[in-house]
């Protein structure tokens, strides 16, 4: 055969088997990758674009909280629990304080109770706003991130004024709160609600009902209700699957039974019940409900000394308790064992994001790699809480 070009002949001697055989490809997603929301490594086995299996590897942020807690006195644990779910510190310390108070049989001052509700619900809004922003980023929309952080900034300013901290507050103490609200603070909270509530429409116009966003999230990562319950999912992730379950209603704690609010569940408006869009939309609706609770609490709050019931010495009788509260991510449970001494014998934390993430291998199978990012984002994980 006459050579008409200068290519080496070996180039054409590739053997192409028939039928075309391909290998599965192993891909490390993370630990340093923006879509993993922290330091999470997911080991993907892919067949082309299709994920065959996804195995999460966690522990990169393990700070031995549970071991630390065993050497701390009871009030000293509070700043540590703040650092677990750092996007919702108030909700974390609320759960711990309530658990210890229940063991001590301590009744908390009314004003402190209301302040706790106000800051927890504001923190829920702030946390969901971060979710809104980062989820937008996950699926390729940059502007919602700026919108979300714009409103969150105002909440953080409110927190700074009442507690001194902007991210980690150490505000909710055993027996009450660290400081009473400064003059005019409650009016500012009301002003924030006035400012915030119309913004929901902006988010909806910009992201929620955006055609591209719906295409990326509807019918993606569907979690059926029974699977969600079996995996111990909780919070908006569980409600997204159409399960009407909110600890603030179903297992009320604090003074949540005094407020009128709705539990939002996924209805499959844009696709199937339990898809990523549903989980997203539950959180958007929840922000409206939280603002409603905040308003009611500000209207009802009585006068009094918010630090009245903070004990000088925390003495916890021997015994144990499992106490759960609803944080922005779901059911945060504290299993606390006391022997009557200065420090806890055991503080085990049932972190909502820990359970929520564990479902990833089950839903990832057969999805596209790009969809996996959308699913992971819709679970709204915080690695600080998963690894503790």
């Amino acid at each position, binding site marked *: 055969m006459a050579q008409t070009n200068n290519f080496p002949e070996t180039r054409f001697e590739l053997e192409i088997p028939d039928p075309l055989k391909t290998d599965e490809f192993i891909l490390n997603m993370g630990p340093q990758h923006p879509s993993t929301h922290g330091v999470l490594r997911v080991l993907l086995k892919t067949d082309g674009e299709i994920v065959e299996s996804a195995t999460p590897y*966690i*522990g990169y942020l*393990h700070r*031995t909280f*549970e*071991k630390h807690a065993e050497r701390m006195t009871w009030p000293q644990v509070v700043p540590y629990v703040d650092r677990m779910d750092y996007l919702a510190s108030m909700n974390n310390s609320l759960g711990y304080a309530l658990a210890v108070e*229940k*063991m001590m049989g301590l009744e908390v001052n009314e004003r402190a109770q209301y302040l706790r509700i106000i800051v927890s619900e504001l923190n829920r809004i702030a946390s969901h706003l971060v979710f809104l922003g980062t989820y937008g980023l996950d699926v390729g929309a940059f502007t919602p991130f700026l919108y979300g952080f714009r409103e969150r900034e105002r909440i953080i300013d409110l927190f700074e004024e009442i507690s001194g901290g902007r991210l980690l507050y150490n505000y909710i103490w055993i027996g009450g709160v660290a400081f009473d609200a400064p003059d005019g603070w409650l009016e500012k909270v009301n002003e924030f609600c006035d400012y915030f509530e119309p913004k929901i429409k902006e988010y909806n116009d910009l992201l929620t009902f955006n055609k591209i966003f719906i295409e990326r999230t509807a019918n993606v990562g569907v979690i059926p209700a029974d699977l969600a*319950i*079996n*995996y*111990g999912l909780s919070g908006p992730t569980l409600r997204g699957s159409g*399960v009407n*379950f909110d600890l603030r209603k*179903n*297992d009320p704690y604090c003074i949540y039974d005094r407020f009128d609010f709705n539990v939002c569940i996924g209805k499959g408006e844009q696709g199937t019940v339990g898809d990523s869009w549903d989980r997203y939309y539950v959180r958007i609706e929840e922000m409206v409900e939280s603002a409603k609770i905040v308003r009611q609490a500000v209207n009802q709050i009585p006068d009094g000394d918010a630090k009245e019931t903070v004990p000088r010495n925390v003495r916890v009788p021997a*015994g*144990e*308790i*499992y106490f*759960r509260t609803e944080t922005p991510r779901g*059911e945060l*449970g504290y*299993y606390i*064992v006391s022997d009557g001494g200065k420090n806890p*014998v*055991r503080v*085990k934390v*049932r972190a909502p994001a*820990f*359970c929520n993430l*564990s*479902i990833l291998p*089950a839903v990832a199978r057969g999805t596209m790699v790009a969809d996996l990012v959308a699913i992971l984002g819709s679970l709204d994980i915080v690695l600080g809480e998963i*690894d*503790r």
Partner: protein
Amino acid sequence: MEAKEIYQRLKDAFQDDILEFNAEVLQPFIKISPDKTEEIAQFLRDKDDLEFDYLMCLSGLDLGENLGVVYHLYSMKFNHKIVLKTEVSKEQPNVNSVANIWRTADWHEREAYDLLGINFVNHPDLRRILLPDDWEGHPLRKDYQPPKSWHGIPVTLANEEEQDGANE
């Protein structure tokens, strides 16, 4: 259903494997034998009048002589709760896994294995979860001594050790 009735139901079905019932404490618990956890879990989940479909929490703890596992169960339908406890010796820390009953238990059992060294028999994938695979020991045991270094990274600081000595 009240804790007392749940205890009766279990006692009727499993007799000697139900070791103790305590209703005096804040949250009543039932103590069960560690090699029957899976059957008991299945019973609690599948019986129509119990239907404990939600495992809230699974915790391991060091009880001094023994290791303990505590299960906190909840029923979405009936809104009732129960606490199960089981104890194993430190020499033979074998507990039957419930990961096939409630998938929640999968990672929680791995965590209890990782931090306390409880061996869950029949667990589908019992590996360390929070610590590196080649870590030695189980840190949440009360007698745990941390290593001086791990792959050349210092774990305990020199002045920390001195402080510990001063406290003792």
